[in-house]
């Protein structure tokens, strides 16, 4: 009678399906996982510590580098928290453009998720298609902010600048063609027997356990919990848009896949509604203590130059107090908790990253399953190490 012993296997930090520098120490009994110990922190840059030494304006570029697949959502959460502390109103055009870009970001993030998730499981075609569409979102980023990924576009009080005239047509064309592309992806996957075998019944987590472990976003809705911050804790004018919040039933990888695909279709609808509402107007609040002056004034008048210099060098004081602002980022609830002592730098900035909390569920979802299914679970959790490690 042959005896067997458990094997310890190191997965990552350099492994194509761990989506970055995630390291998992697996204890295996044959191909069955008996224990998972995630090891994170390889990408820790101390963003929370750095933020305590920077003015509120200087922190914004750091937020791009959290979830680098959804920079505009990160910008939005941070800016909303600062605006809440400052208690300022944002012009309607700026709010609408923020909604458009936040939803474009959701499309982008979900496209990367779908591409990598499918590739991990073995469907390469979807990867190539989804990256083709993602490229259009990247071009839109470049069009309005000059950068493809680190957008740094929103400002306390509005936007850094107005969007160029060709923006509307580019976005409209994209969201009009997107449902057709989604049909293509679904045609490749939704009824594909291999896809079904790999995802149905994989990574099951009940609604109760999902809430207990703190899942948010599509991962929580896949377990049947009907909660979306855009609808239930509305921000940035989301209460003015009509959209459905999809929920799953079977709490498995396949349901989370369906939830995210419906979310992409709904994002297109929100963008269409937002484009209809888009009217000419200012994109920055009339708040000279906080907002930078227009460039014409900086280049052509001494007052404008002094104004610009003053905000750039000293920042602006923010009232003493503490706020928490969450947004429905593509991966879940992204929250910023800021403690202000009344100076122009935050006393403490805490980022609540959705991926960090969601990753905790991996132990529950994968212990006792086959090692090949672990790859599908990592994909379905949709993690980004930039925001886990901060």
């Amino acid at each position, binding site marked *: 009678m042959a005896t067997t012993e458990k094997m310890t296997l190191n997965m990552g930090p350099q492994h194509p399906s761990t989506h970055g520098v995630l390291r998992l120490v697996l204890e295996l009994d044959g191909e069955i996982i008996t224990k998972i110990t995630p090891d994170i922190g390889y990408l820790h840059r101390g963003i929370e*510590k750095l933020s305590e030494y920077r003015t509120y304006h200087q922190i914004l570029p750091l937020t791009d580098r959290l979830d680098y697949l959804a920079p505009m959502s990160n910008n939005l959460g941070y800016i909303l928290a600062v605006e809440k502390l400052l208690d300022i109103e944002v012009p309607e055009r700026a709010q609408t453009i923020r909604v458009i870009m936040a939803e474009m970001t959701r499309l982008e993030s979900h496209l990367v998720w779908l591409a990598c998730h499918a590739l991990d499981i073995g469907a390469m075609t979807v990867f190539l298609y989804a990256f083709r569409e993602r490229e259009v979102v990247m071009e839109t980023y470049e069009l309005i902010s000059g950068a493809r990924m680190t957008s740094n576009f929103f400002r306390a009080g509005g936007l850094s600048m107005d969007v160029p005239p060709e923006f509307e047509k580019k976005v409209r064309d994209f969201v009009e063609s997107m449902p057709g592309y989604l049909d293509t992806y679904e045609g490749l996957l939704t009824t594909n027997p291999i896809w079904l075998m790999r995802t149905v019944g994989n990574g099951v987590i009940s609604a109760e356990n999902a809430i207990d472990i*703190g899942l948010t976003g599509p991962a929580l809705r896949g377990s049947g919990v009907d909660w979306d911050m855009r609808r239930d804790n509305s921000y940035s004018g989301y209460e003015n848009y009509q959209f459905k919040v999809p929920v799953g039933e079977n709490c498995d990888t396949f349901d989370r896949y369906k939830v995210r695909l419906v979310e992409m279709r709904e994002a297109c609808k929100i963008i269409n509604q937002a484009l209809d509402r888009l009217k000419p107007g200012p994109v920055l609040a009339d708040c000279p203590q906080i907002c930078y002056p227009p460039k014409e004034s900086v280049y052509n008048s001494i007052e404008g130059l002094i104004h610009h210099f003053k905000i750039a060098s000293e920042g602006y004081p923010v009232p003493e107090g503490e706020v928490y602002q969450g947004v429905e980022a593509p991966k879940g609830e992204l929250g910023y908790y800021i403690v202000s002592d009344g100076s122009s730098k935050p006393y403490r900035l805490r980022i609540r990253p959705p991926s*960090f909390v969601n990753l905790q569920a991996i132990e529950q979802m994968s212990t006792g399953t086959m090692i090949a299914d672990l790859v599908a679970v990592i994909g379905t959790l949709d993690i980004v190490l930039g925001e886990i490690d901060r």
Partner: protein
Amino acid sequence: MAENNRAVVKLKEKFAASIIDVVEFRGEVTVTVKQEDILEILTFLKQSLLYNLLTDLTAVDYLGKKEERFMLVYQLFSIANKDRLRIKAPLTEADGHIQSATQVWATANWLEREVFDLFGIVFQNHPDLRRILMTDDWVGHPLRKDYPLQGPDREPYKGRLS
């Protein structure tokens, strides 16, 4: 108003002696409580008032600003009632430990590990209190205010010279 908040009313009834302060700022209610009673209060909030999601758990270092150096911050959310509540508990440096919330919410596991790692606060009865972001052999707790930004034993950055 903070006085009419459903949680504040119930907490004042049940834990009147533990409440240090109730503040409302920008529509957000913050209740500061004594750290000895934190576990009972959190359990009560979850079970009786349906704050079923622990959104976030973190700490703030008030070195030299307040008598108690650390402030634990719990962000709660109720999916059923769709409202938020912030619970805070001050902690002196000499004391340095607080009851773990892991038995109330499983989420607290990694969140408390992070606070332990970056602030050096010890959570009692935590199932697996190890460093999480820094390496296991790291010395010091980076988010403390007396920890230098550039790291230990290095010259502070003086800005660009040109």
